[in-house]
Structure formats: structure tokens, C-alpha cells
């Protein structure tokens, strides 16, 4: 399977309006200035505490970031005399900064409100402590600026393992997903799966807002899994943990036999366990998928069946005077 790196999308900016609307209810951000500069753009996912800029050092000032005023910044301004207050703050406002956030329940000074009006830069405040504000806002901004990718496949939560089925059109991805749903597993998305890189080493998958849990079954048409199977059959998001590549069995392809070498698939720089699964008549892909999920869980909890078997074999080879024995040496009289 090849993933086209060209199709990775990354937000290059979000507007202050979007930022405010999404953080208002989640993190309790309040608008404290007039409603100005909402069309301003945030171009960087990091926050900046402008302590040094306030003190006068603006050479490396990260003006494209959301500026966070914690206790330190506010106390610093408050102890300046009125003239210096305005001067020091104006130095900051003259840069094209997107917006100001004041944390820890501090109130803006009258100079800040005046400059907000003058330069059309909005000021928000929150009662949350500064470190918590940094954590919450960074996480939100990281997510907004995270690289994402749309993939063609079916994404299902099988025993809590996020499995993405990929493969050619018509190979039966949706049918496997439907079969898994029927057996009590949960559909995340079918056909179009948006994969987002969340933090280091984590990929999250979700559907699109339009499609949600609709799917197409060839020969039937479009069905709605949520209406049909209810809320227990779906979920909105899931971490991507295993990629299963379905393909019609090919004589010339080598499929894994022992499972000792783990193949992985690189998606946006993150290696995800990858299984190439040949489809042959009489093979129940759904059951195999459940087995893959259980095997993944076993490995996750420290039991790796191929390795355990390998070690047993090595021990056996070292044994002297050995013969192939039955599991039970003597059946006694228990013929069950």
C-alpha cells in the first residue's frame, strides 16, 4: 500500500474568531475587550509568554503566536509607573500579534484595553491557572495545526483496537466492517477516514461530518449504521493501531507465516503494525480480524505467541535423547 504524501493537509492558520468560539465553552475563555480583530490569524500552534518583550527585548519576539499573560507579566506591568506601562505595552501591541490571553483570573489594565481598541487586538481572560491554560490551549492549537490525511478504507474498533481496512475498491472492506458491527464491534468510519497525527506516535482516525456512519454496501446502496444498529455500534474517533491490507490471494506474494517479523506501515512518520491479508474462498475475514485484534492485545500485555513458541522450540532442540511426545504421556482411564 502506498500513501501519497502529497495528500497530507495541514492548517496554516486559524482565525481568532474560530479560536475563541472553540475555546469559549471548553476552557471558559471570556472576551474582555471589545469585539475587535476577530479576523486576525493565528499562524503558530505555540503560545508565547511575552515577559522579555515587555521588558524591552523584542529582537526574537514571537509575534505570530497567541500571547499569554500570567501572574508574572501582569505583576510586572502593574509595578511600572503609568508612563512606562503604556510604553512597554504599546511596544508589544505594535507587532501584529493575533490576540492576548490573560490567565489566573487577572484583569487587564486600562492601558491594555485602550491599546486593544487602538490596534484592534482582542483580549481574552480565563480563571484557570497559567500552567493549566498553557496545557489546554496548546493541546487545542496542536490539534488544529496537526497534519492530517484522508484515507480510503473502513475503520472499526475491534475489541478496543482501532483497525483500518484498506485495499482496492470492491475487495470487500465495507462488508468486513459491517460483519464486525454485526458481531458487536464499533464502526468509526467507512470509505473516507481522516487520519490526524496527534502528538508523537499517535494517529487518530475519524469520519467526515457529512458521512458520519453512512456506508455503501454494493448491491444494496447507502445504509446508516447508526440508525440500523444503534449507538453501541458506532464511535466518533479511535486511535489507529493496526492497518489490514485486504487483497485477492496472489501466488507470487509472500504472506507472513510465523509472525516473528513485524511489518509496519509508515503513516505521516509513524509506524503502524501492518498485516497483508490474502482473501481466499472459505476464509472468514471477520474472524481473522478479531484474531488479529486479540493477538495485538496479547502482545500489548506482554505475551507474544510466536516468540513463546520459538523459545520452546529452541529449548527442545537443546534437549538430549528426545522423541516427539504426546501432550499427555498416559491416558489412564479418562477417555473424555
Amino acid at each position, binding site marked *: 500500500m502506498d500513501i*501519497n504524501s502529497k*495528500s497530507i*493537509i495541514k492548517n496554516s492558520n486559524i482565525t481568532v474568531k474560530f479560536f475563541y468560539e472553540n475555546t469559549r465553552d471548553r476552557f471558559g475563555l471570556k472576551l474582555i475587550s471589545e469585539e475587535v480583530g476577530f479576523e486576525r490569524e493565528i499562524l503558530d500552534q505555540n503560545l508565547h509568554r511575552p515577559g522579555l518583550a515587555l521588558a524591552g527585548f523584542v529582537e526574537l519576539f514571537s509575534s505570530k503566536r497567541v500571547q499569554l499573560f500570567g501572574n508574572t507579566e501582569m505583576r510586572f506591568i502593574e509595578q511600572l509607573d503609568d508612563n512606562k506601562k503604556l510604553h512597554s505595552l504599546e511596544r508589544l501591541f505594535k507587532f501584529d500579534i493575533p490576540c492576548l490571553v490573560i490567565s489566573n483570573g487577572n484583569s487587564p489594565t486600562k492601558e491594555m484595553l485602550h491599546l486593544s481598541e487602538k490596534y484592534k487586538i482582542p483580549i481574552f481572560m480565563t480563571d484557570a491557572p497559567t500552567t493549566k491554560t498553557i496545557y489546554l490551549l496548546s493541546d487545542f492549537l496542536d490539534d488544529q495545526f496537526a497534519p492530517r490525511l*484522508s484515507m*480510503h478504507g473502513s475503520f472499526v474498533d475491534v475489541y478496543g483496537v482501532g483497525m483500518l481496512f484498506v485495499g482496492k*475498491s*470492491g475487495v470487500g472492506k465495507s462488508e468486513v466492517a459491517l460483519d464486525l458491527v454485526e458481531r458487536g464491534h464499533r464502526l468509526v468510519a*467507512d*470509505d*473516507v477516514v481522516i487520519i490526524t497525527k496527534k502528538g508523537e506516535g499517535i494517529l487518530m482516525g475519524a469520519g*467526515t461530518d*457529512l*458521512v458520519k456512519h*453512512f*456506508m*455503501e454496501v454494493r448491491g444494496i446502496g*447507502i445504509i446508516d449504521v447508526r440508525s440500523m444498529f444503534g449507538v453501541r455500534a458506532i464511535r466518533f474517533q479511535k486511535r489507529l493501531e493496526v492497518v489490514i491490507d485486504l487483497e485477492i490471494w496472489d501466488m507470487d506474494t509472500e504472506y507472513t507465516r510465523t509472525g516473528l517479523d513485524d511489518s509496519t506501515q509508515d503513516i505521516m512518520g509513524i509506524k503502524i503494525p501492518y498485516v497483508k491479508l490474502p482473501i481466499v474462498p472459505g476464509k472468514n475475514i471477520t474472524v481473522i480480524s478479531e484474531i488479529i485484534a486479540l493477538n495485538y492485545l496479547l502482545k500489548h500485555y506482554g505475551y507474544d505467541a510466536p516468540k513463546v513458541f520459538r523459545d520452546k522450540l529452541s529449548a527442545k532442540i537443546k534437549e538430549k535423547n528426545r522423541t516427539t511426545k504426546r501432550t499427555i504421556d498416559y491416558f489412564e482411564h479418562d477417555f473424555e
Partner: protein
Amino acid sequence: MLEKKVVIVNDAGLHTRPAATIVKLAAKYKSDLFIIKDGLEINGKSIIGVMTLAAEKGSELILRFDGEDEEQAAEEIIDYFKRGFDEM
């Protein structure tokens, strides 16, 4: 691989009926078809995929054909776009 830009010209945009036709046309060929709109890339052989684009009149799409019969596939499918999905 072949990449072509197309514009939606009919008033109703890329709704269910043309989406179904595109998928049918694409399925006739061995080549893969990918459609890209505003960075969202979908498989042109999947009806849900094509409808996900929700492409309105005037929107620009990039069609990417890849495979042995890409030329013929491109010709037929692009022609269908140009005809405004026979709704003009």
C-alpha cells in the same frame, strides 16, 4: 499518472446522481481514480467518497488517474464533467 483540473459547471453541483455515474464510469476502468478538493483526497470508485466532497457549482477538483487505461478513463470522465453531468 495523469492529473487534470475540472470545474463543476451545473447548478446543483456534484450531487447523488452524478456521483453515482462517476463511480460507475470509474469502475469500468482498471485505473485508479482519485479526486482532490481543498486537500481532501478521496477514491473516485467509492460513492460515499465522491459525495463527501460536496462539490458545489464553480468548485475546482483535481482528478488523478493512475493505471494502464488512464488515458481512456480520463477522456470519458472529464467529458462527463464538461457536459455538466448532462444537466445543462
